[in-house]
């Protein structure tokens, strides 16, 4: 639904305004915190890895680091069911449209972690003719985890940062995030219709 159609709902408009002006309404605030509690504690990753970082991601799931403690072990192979996408590894030109499609297939709310030097900037392959210089050229990134590859501890830290970020979001007043995303997509248009 376009925002203009939705705007005639005075009550919600009022709530949003109130949220912006006077902090949080008690009811909405509580609801928000409950929802954010759920969201931030249940971040399901998409099983997506292109290179070395992916192996460390496996190690992250294994007994020594055990991401299951935080409830992140429900790695979904289908992007429709995942919450965040850990871009683990180099993204090259041929892969770029695929990554973008995967991002588009994720269901809202969706987050992206750029994991490792390659995903952040191209890393050691920055000068290559076929490497995308940072995944933020094609999808909006929420958290950057440096390293080549990042140690599993660093990945845990990164996902925890994402969890914190989710916690301060506003479900009912979440205009900021939407606008930011919109802005990103305006500057990075798709060249063909989404399907």
């Amino acid at each position, binding site marked *: 639904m376009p925002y203009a159609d939705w705007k005639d709902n005075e009550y919600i408009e009022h709530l949003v305004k109130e949220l912006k002006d006077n902090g949080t309404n008690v009811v909405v605030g509580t609801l928000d915190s409950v929802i954010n509690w759920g969201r931030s504690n249940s971040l399901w990753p998409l099983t*997506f890895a292109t290179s070395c970082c*992916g192996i460390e991601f496996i190690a992250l799931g294994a007994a020594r680091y055990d991401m299951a403690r935080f409830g992140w072990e429900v790695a979904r192979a289908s992007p429709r069911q995942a919450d965040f996408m850990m871009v683990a590894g180099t993204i090259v030109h*041929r892969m770029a449209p695929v990554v973008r499609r995967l991002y588009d297939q994720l269901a809202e709310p969706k987050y992206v972690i750029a994991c490792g030097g390659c995903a952040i900037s191209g890393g050691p392959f920055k000068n290559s003719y*076929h490497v995308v210089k940072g995944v933020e050229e094609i999808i909006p990134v929420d958290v950057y985890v440096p390293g080549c590859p990042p140690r599993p501890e660093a990945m845990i830290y990164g996902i925890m940062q994402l969890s914190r970020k989710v916690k301060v979001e506003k479900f009912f007043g979440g205009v900021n995030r939407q606008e930011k995303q919109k802005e990103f997509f305006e500057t990075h248009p798709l060249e063909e219709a989404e399907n």
Partner: protein
Amino acid sequence: MANVQEKIAKLFPEATFEEGEWLLVNIPDAKWHSLAKTLKEDPELGFDYLVALVGMDWTDALGCMYYLTSTTHNTHVSVKVTTDNRENPMLHSISDLWAVANLYEREVYDYYGIIFINHPDMRRLFLRNDWVGYPLRKDYNDDPAVNPVRLDHEEVEDTTVTYVETADGTVEKRDVTIFAPEEFVLNIGPQHPATHGVLRFRTSVDGETIKKIDLYLGYIHRGIEKLCEGLGYSQTLHFTDRLDYLSAQQNRHCLCMCIEKALGLEVPRRAQVIRVMMDELMRISSHLLFIGTFCMDLGATTMLFYALRERETILNILEKTCGARMTFNYNCIGGVMADLDADFVKDVKHLIEIMPAAIKEYNTVFTGNVIAHNRMIGVGKLTKEDAISYGVTGPAGRASGWACDVRKTTPYGIYNEIDFDEVILKEGDCMDRFVARVEEIKQSVRILEQLVDKIPEGEICAKVPKIIKLPEGHWFQQVEASRGAFGVYIESRGANTPWRVKFNSPCMNLAGVVNHLTCGGKIADLITIGGTLDYVVPDIDR
């Protein structure tokens, strides 16, 4: 060597020869295919294994270097074929003789634009079909504006082209159908849990039965070979760790050895022992990860965690000495970067102690299981002849009965002093490929056992000049990486940067054989076969 040269000279008077580590034969393109046929089929020559095919741009000419080995006589020969035509370069294909040449030639076409006559499928291998230019040519325009990051999807192509030489000698372009319109084509990958990275199979299926697989590569093609051409020799080293990150030590060992060979550098004994130990530790950790991920692919998730438990022990050992868990940057030209950690001997001994029990546990949990037997025995059989033709080396090749361990055929480092068995099995099915790796872990433990108490004192690195300049020439070196024979080709023109570096990865051959093995199998068999071949995609794509 001499009689090979005599024989070729007799049959092909136009051939010229250059002596070297491998005998080099120069042959004009017109005679190349018949020479290749002789080399392969003559029983006295019997060069049945195409080790490497290196595309080259010498600026005055384009061409290829072919490295051939005879598995029966253990003799080597290399052939150089060139063409002066830069606009429309054409060479004759040998993909009808060596199956592995199919992918190799497509790679050369992708890099240099050399068209191979009679090759059944002349498409780009790594880059998009609409890519402008041939990146490894010296006159390539690498302006990002020419080839920007594009977000539109590639067109799905069901046809390809082939260039056929007609009877009167002209070359004709013909269309070939890959998939007919009525076929049910399933797209597996590039983002798929079972492809071990970003590999893409377009799979034509009939119900659950696979009819044909079309392989798409390049989803992680990082252009490492081109990057190397602009960097100093010691700067190129770190790329090898990121090729096949599960045999980082072996790959780097290979490149270092190749450069040392070119420099004529003597590596201290201590460094050599350390290198071999690191290689074997890496091999064990890689095979452990294989056991884990393969079992997970088959649905036995728990095995992954058992295998990774032991792998973490190895990573601890490596981390203490090298300072990293994955990309170690440990070998360097002339030796190794840092001395061993104080706990190294103790930790390795502990590992040697726990490994037999761990392997027993894996066998109890997984290998003895009746479902696992049903899934693996008789699935994806690879004969020895096919293994050689497809260049399937490593544990997968040895499971088919081909003694292809570089550590035994052309020993490097101190491997000739070590007592270990080459694991050779007969059947060549998935079960054998699995067992071969488990047995190799045992052999690697055996190697470690022999060396752990005998690490000599001394230097860890030879004296190496600050700026390394290789003399003019070309060198080829192979090691046994975790997945098979890993080769490095360096051509130098005397500068402090290489003219051409080619990494000859074992995984490309493994990926090339997938179609051959899976046809007629079930979709689930594709996962089993892919799992036991155990390719690492960044190593394929480089």
